[in-house]
C-alpha cells in the first residue's frame, strides 16, 4: 500500500476513536443541564456540525481562489468534496438545532441569526452543486465552482449581520437564546472535544472524498477522449 493510502488509513482509525471518545464524553462526562434536561446534549453535536459547515465553506472558497490563481486542477475536487461534506454537516446542524429547539422553546424554527445563516449557506451549497451539474466542460466547471464558492463565502458574513440586525430590532418575535443554558467547565471541555473530533473527522472525510472525486474526474476525462472520434478518423494509438 502506498504511503499516502497508509497515512489515510491511520488517520481514519484515529478519527474513529476520537469521535467515539467525544461521543462518550457527551453521554457520560458532561453533566445534565439543569434547565433543558438531557435534550441539551444534542447541542454539542449541533455546535460541532455547524462549525464544520462553516469550515467546509472556507475550505471551498480558499480552494476556489487557489484554483483561479494557480490554475492547478487538484483544487477542484477538494473544493467540490468540501462543499458536499459541508452540506451534509450543515444539514446535521440544522436538524439537530430543530430537535433541540422543539422541546425547549416549543417551536421547530427560531430565527436565530446563526441558524438562519446556516440555512442560507446550505442553499448556497446546493446552488454550487447544481451549478457544477449544469456545466459539461470540466475546466469551465472548476472555474465557475471557484467563482461561486468565493462570492458565496463573501456573502456569509453579510447574511449573518443582516440576520443579527433583524433580531436585535425585533427581539420579541423570536425564540430563546443559548444564554438560557448554564454551562459548566465539563461542558466546555466536552464541547471542545466534540469540535476537535469533528474537525479531524472532516479532514479525513475530505481526504477520502477528494481522492474519489479526483478519480471520478479522471475517468470522465478518459471517457470523453475516447468519445471524440471524428467521422472517418482512425483512432491514433
Amino acid at each position, binding site marked *: 500500500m502506498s504511503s499516502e493510502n497508509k497515512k489515510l488509513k491511520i488517520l481514519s482509525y484515529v478519527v474513529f476513536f476520537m469521535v467515539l471518545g467525544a461521543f462518550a464524553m457527551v453521554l457520560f462526562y458532561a453533566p445534565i443541564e439543569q434547565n433543558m434536561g438531557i435534550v441539551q446534549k444534542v447541542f454539542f453535536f449541533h455546535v460541532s456540525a455547524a462549525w464544520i459547515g462553516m469550515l467546509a465553506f472556507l475550505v471551498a472558497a480558499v480552494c476556489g481562489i487557489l484554483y483561479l490563481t494557480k490554475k492547478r486542477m487538484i483544487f477542484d475536487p477538494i473544493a467540490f468534496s468540501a462543499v458536499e461534506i459541508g452540506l451534509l454537516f450543515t444539514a446535521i446542524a440544522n436538524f439537530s438545532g430543530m430537535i433541540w429547539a422543539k422541546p425547549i422553546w416549543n417551536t421547530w424554527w427560531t430565527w436565530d441569526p446563526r441558524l438562519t445563516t446556516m440555512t442560507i449557506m446550505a*442553499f448556497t451549497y446546493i446552488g454550487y452543486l447544481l451549478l457544477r451539474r449544469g456545466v459539461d466542460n470540466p475546466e469551465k466547471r472548476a472555474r465557475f465552482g471557484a467563482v461561486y464558492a468565493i462570492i458565496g463565502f463573501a*456573502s456569509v458574513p453579510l447574511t449573518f449581520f443582516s440576520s443579527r440586525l433583524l433580531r436585535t430590532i425585533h427581539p420579541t418575535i423570536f425564540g430563546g437564546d443559548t444564554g438560557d443554558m448554564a454551562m459548566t467547565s465539563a461542558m466546555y471541555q466536552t464541547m471542545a472535544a466534540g469540535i476537535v473530533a469533528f474537525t479531524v473527522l472532516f479532514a479525513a472525510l475530505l481526504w477520502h472524498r477528494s481522492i474519489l472525486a479526483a478519480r471520478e474526474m479522471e475517468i470522465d476525462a478518459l471517457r470523453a477522449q475516447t468519445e471524440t472520434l471524428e467521422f472517418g478518423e482512425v483512432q491514433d494509438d
Partner: protein
Amino acid sequence: MKDWLHSVRTLVWKDLLQEWRSKDMLTAMFAFAILTLFIFNYAMELSPINRAEIAAGIIWVVVVFAGTLGLNRSFTAEQDQGCFDALVMAVPDVSAIYFGKMLTNWLVMLFVSVLIVPIYSLLYNQSLFNAGFLLVLVLGAWCYSAAGTLIAGMTVQTRMRDLLLPILLFPILMPVNMAVVKSASGILTAAPFEDVQAWLVLLAAYGIIVTTVSIMVFEYVIRE
C-alpha cells in the same frame, strides 16, 4: 482610465439600444410587475396602517422578480452570438465588460421601479414619493445588479440557464432583501433613524464588497 470609462459608456449604450429595440425584456418585466401588484391586492386586504409597512416588501418583490427576468436576458445576446470574444479583444480590461453590464442591469431595474412606484401609489392610494425610499431602491438595485451580473454571466453558459439563476442568486442576495425591505419600510413608517441607518450601512457595505469581489473574479467567468 479614460479608455476604460469610454468602453463602459459604449457598452451601456449598446445594451440599452439593444433592449430598447427588442422591447421584449422591458415589456415582459413591466407586465410581470403589474400582474404581481394586482395579485398582491387580491391576496392581502390591508388597512392603510399595514399598507405602509408592507409597501416596501411588495415593491421590492416586484422589482426583484422583474430584475431576474432582465438579468437572464442580459447575457443571451453575447452568449448566443459569441460576442464575448469580440468584446474581450476590444476593451481595455475585462472589468469594463462587467461594469457595463452591471450598469445596464441597474438602469433597467431603476426604470422598472420608476414605472412601478407611481402605479402602486395610484392603485393603493399611498404615495411612495419619498426621497429616502427611492434612495433605498437605488441602492438595492445596485447591490442586486452587482451580484446578479456576476451570477448571470455564469448561468447563461450552463445547460439550465434561466432556471439556475434564481437558485444561485437568492441565497447570495438575502442580506439585500432584508436590508431593503427593512430600511424602506422603516422610512415609510417614519421609524427612528438609528434603526434605518444600520440597514443602510449594511446595504452600502454589501454593494462595495460584492462589486469589488465581482470585478476581481468576473474575468474568470468569460475567459478560459
